[in-house]
């Protein structure tokens, strides 16, 4: 992981990518008030995987984020384990994430906490699909605005089959998932 303030390898790649994109803007700080940024609507996303492969950056500026109030802290986590995993443990053969970006931490029986290592995550949405199908849908994708180079036309938006991408005000640059009204509270 690059230390804040230092230009790390990833920053270099990002800068190089920005230079290579017509209209790309090299900027990781907050956008000017009134400007618009690209963001994807997690309710629209159908987890096609293109967020990982179609961003101008490699790895993608799209990352998995986790809404802990929605999470069930499940032992049999659909976002962490392969569908047919023989065991519910941290063995690599059981992990769903292709780049091992999710950490499973035991809390108390039978609860486990799942955290995303953003540096490793490539935004493939595999865990998002598993969590949505078999869990509470607490894992979802967002364009990380500190990574995004703000292309005039987002390359993923052009490829997204679900039309999940939109321009939103930079002051509210994320479309976050929260616990649905009336749903039972988690502790």
């Amino acid at each position, binding site marked *: 992981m690059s230390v804040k303030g230092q230009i790390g390898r990833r920053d270099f790649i990002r800068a190089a990518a920005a230079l290579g994109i017509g209209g790309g803007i090299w900027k990781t700080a907050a956008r000017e008030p009134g400007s618009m940024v690209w963001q994807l609507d997690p309710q629209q996303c159908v987890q096609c995987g293109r967020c990982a*492969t179609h961003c101008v950056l490699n790895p993608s500026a799209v990352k998995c984020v986790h809404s802990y109030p929605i*999470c069930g802290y499940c*032992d049999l*986590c659909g976002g962490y384990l392969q569908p*047919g995993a023989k065991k519910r443990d941290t063995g690599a053969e059981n992990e769903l994430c292709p780049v091992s970006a999710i950490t499973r931490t035991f809390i108390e029986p039978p609860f486990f906490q799942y955290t995303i290592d953003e540096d490793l995550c490539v935004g493939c949405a595999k865990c*998002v699909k598993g969590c949505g199908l*078999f869990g509470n849908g607490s894992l979802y994708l967002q364009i990380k605005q500190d990574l995004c180079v703000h292309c005039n036309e987002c390359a993923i938006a052009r490829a997204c089959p679900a039309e999940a991408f939109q321009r939103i005000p930079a002051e509210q640059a994320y479309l976050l998932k929260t616990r649905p009204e*009336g749903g039972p509270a988690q502790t």
Partner: protein
Amino acid sequence: MTVRNKTGKPIPAWVWGVATVIAIGVVVLLASKDWRRDPPQSFRYEVAQYERVDPSRVLFEEREPITPDVPGLTALATSPEGRIYAAGTNAVVVYGLDGREIARHAINGSPTCLAVTADGEILLGMTDHVEVLHADGKPKARWPSLGERAHLTSIAANGEDIYAADAGNRVVVRFDREGNVVQHIGKADASKGIPGFVVPSPYFDVTFDNTGTFWAVNPGRHGLESYRSSGALISAWYRPSIEAEGFSGCCNPSHVAFRSDGSLVTTEKGLARVKLYSVDQKLVGFVAQPATFHDSPMGAFSCKLETPLVDLAVDSKDRVLVLDANKNAIRIFEEKASE
């Protein structure tokens, strides 16, 4: 400079024209096609193998559904004398076994669960409290709220006892017929061997079997637990697995109902399937497979869909009734005649 061919003659203008058109065509083609690779196999979530069910394992066939003229159906119940009750936005509708509407009662709101007592009173779980209707649909009582965190997901009646599953507080509440809370069931207590309910989402079902024993789903542990009315744990069985024999995900089985022979019918969210278990908890077969609830095979795995199976009941003819939110209908499944 004039460009000439090998014989020394100038290349005619039309050849240049054709070459230019071809070159432009190639450039346009290259620019318009998205040459980036599609996500590789390792980025795909594959569950198709679990979605496919051998047709020989499907033991039920579907009959004509009931399609209530009520928006947003949320709850289903049956009575021993062969009535079918469906609740949705501002209404409870009562049907006979032939699917004909017998009665319609206006209510306020959308019940989260529904049950009918032996004498025909209708119990409506209204998120944090229970409302009672007389058999003729007239309001009888509104029981006190169970608190801000309460979220009733299932209600079951047996004689004088009413049991309600409170997903918010992860406990089963036993009421008397007047709505007094008599007992809390299922709170974790190691000294009594009670593991505690794990309820990650609002899917927490309760029911009675054919002998009158009370059962509660422990959805986070992927199984069922039976309790005495005193709150003592009688037995439990859990089957966490994505294979057909088990229950997967965070909260399954999502709904359960017993048939008159003691066999158990279950629904699941995620992998929308309805299964039948024997009294000794072995998988007998499928009532309905995932494809039954989705027009397209991958529809079963679209994260944009909430689970279509919002409630389950068994009627007095042992048919399995599934409330399908996608179709806003009561889907009816009858066991195939044995050959």
